[in-house]
């Protein structure tokens, strides 16, 4: 049995109604689990680009790529797993019921991680984090250790593009 590992695919698809359903249906119909999927229109308005993250073994991942490739709506499939890329994910974290001490700690954390405190009031703080998925994960771990159940999290899913000179994932 191959080892399970995190993989990334970037695909160009037709920007049409139903294509997202077709792609997600292909995953669910064949019991492939999607970790994350983002989609948005590209420089060409007739095309969208999806960044898809999956955790799978080699064999399943090969099948996923082949199945995507044979879909009429899919224009191009790129395996980003081992390519030099830049990948970022937008994550909002709201901390509720903050004390003054909590807030001071929040600013320290934001400074160290290089993320923004986008908004706050007397007892709530909102982090806006645009980092790699891994870094967002570590920050989130720290925040939940610090603030526990008071967190509210919204994650946007990763977007990725081929690197120009260095890689960051």
């Amino acid at each position: 049995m191959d080892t399970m590992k995190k993989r990334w695919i970037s695909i160009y698809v037709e920007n049409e109604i139903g294509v997202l359903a077709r792609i997600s249906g292909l995953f669910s119909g064949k019991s492939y689990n999607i970790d994350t999927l983002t989609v948005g229109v590209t420089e060409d308005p007739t095309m969208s680009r999806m960044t898809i993250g999956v955790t799978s073994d080699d064999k399943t991942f090969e099948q996923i790529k082949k199945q995507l490739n044979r879909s009429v709506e899919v224009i191009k499939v790129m395996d980003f797993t081992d390519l030099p890329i830049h990948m970022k994910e937008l994550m909002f974290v709201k901390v509720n019921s903050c004390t003054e001490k909590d807030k001071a700690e929040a600013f320290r954390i934001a400074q160290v991680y290089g993320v923004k405190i986008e908004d706050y009031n007397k007892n709530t703080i909102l982090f806006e984090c645009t980092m790699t998925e891994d870094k967002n994960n570590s920050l989130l771990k720290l925040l939940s250790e610090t603030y526990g159940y008071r967190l509210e999290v919204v994650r946007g899913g990763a977007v990725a593009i081929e690197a120009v000179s260095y890689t960051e994932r």
Partner: protein
Amino acid sequence: MDIKGTELFVKALREEGVDTVFGYPGGMAIDLFDALYDADDIDVILPRHEQALVHEADGYARSTGKVGVCLVTSGPGATNLVTGIATANYDCVPLVCFTGQVSRDLIGNDAFQEVDIVGVTRNICKYAVTVRDRKDLATIIKKAFYVARTGKPGPVVVDIPKDIQLEMGSDEYPSEISIRGYKPSNGVHVGQLKKAMTMLKSAHKPVILAGGGVKISRAGESLTRLAEKMRIPVITTIMGKGVIPTDHPMYVGNIGMYGNYASNKAISECDVLFAIGVRFGDRITGKIEEFAKNAKIIHVDIDTASISRNIVVNIPIVADAKTALDEMLNHASAVKSDAWLKSIDEWKKEIPITMSGYEGMTPEKIINRINDLFPDSIVTTDVGQNQLWTTQYIRMDGKRQFLTSGGLGTMGYGLPAAIGASIGNPGKPVICISGDGGAQMNIQELATAHALETPVILCIFNNTYLGNVKQMQKMFYNKRYSSTCLRYSRSCNRQCRIDGTCTGRDYVPDFVKLAESYGCVGIRVEDESQMDEAFKRAAENTKSVTLIEFMLDCEYDVYPMVPGGAALSDMMFG
């Protein structure tokens, strides 16, 4: 010049060379049918049920190689196609299914007979699309035919809202199309082929495994020549049966769950397996770890996704079967396979496929009579024991065609597929071998056949049971015949195990009377001595279906059999 969407639809059919449409009208398709009313060059077939309609288009497409065209209304008309679309998708049959749809302003409103058919069929067809703009209608139809017939063929669904049907727009229909996300493979990687040839030539126990892909690419002759030239035995899947004549010295038989002893043994013992146009489905591999355990495997398929999915292969080759075989023929030379061919011959003699252990009118005898009397014919089957016996005993000589629902295993396929094949091949005898269970799914098509004077011979193997399931209940469920007896009635013992105390009522329907009520000929055959007379009458009836009901002993089973999940070498012989 501007024309209505419906007029463009008819024009598109003509441009695509369509001369036959299988259609069932309804509110959202009425305008399309109206446009066809004056199209004398396009024959519109009216079946009696949309499920049968799509199987008829399927039988037509498989037997002619043309694209089968379906036209139905929205909602239930469209959803009734679902089973047939999935059937065609599994067996790679080119279909274009047009569905009427409610007007665009009503889509999403739960309008009368509104169904998101594109959403429903998305995962069971090659491509599905709703036309959302009149100006896209022509390119979408062009695209549909192109996608359906190229690469690995398959069904395409085109959903046309009523307002688009009526909207005026350009009359242009493109002569060519290029789809950026769809480039079917053409050609073959010669380097990979050479590697394959080297591997085959070094083999001592080589085997060719040919599947439905060889049939679809009409590569039977090339395959036969390659087998002759290289002296490599050929084994087929049930979908590949007939790509080489069944009496050819290089032909071994079918592989798989109901394959013959020599084939399954040869696959288990071969050292190089050359598989072409197969997808290594579970019914042919048995236990994956034991499948062709000692063999290096070469796999040619047009679909990259079929390669190394179920079986890991040593040399993958993405190509159309005929392209690959013709290229291989340029490099073919004989392999030293004499000893291997001899052992296969011995296995064939050791345990041949036969029902000679049974008394009476066995399916083997019936099918052999059909082989003798109708050599140049098209044979379709339903699904179940009738199908398995046919795949075992049907004789294929290169001329005859054999159509069966192999992948999805759809009961109710046989009769409509036969009618479709008959429509596509006028004058050619078409025989459907069905069971008494499957025959009752889509029996209403006798009316279609009567109306169109399609002389199909419908052979119903009546054993009063859903025999294939019953066989498994007999073998693996301690004869607990749960819901498989078609004579079961309220007065029956639910735990009946056929111990001679049957209180079941008389079998219904009376197939002979049923046939007669549809204006067809019905004949009941209870003894083998009556067979020839029945077939003679059937051959003389060129105006309607002849239904021949063969009364079979319900204890006839299909052997050999590999139990589900077991290795191919673990065959049971009854």
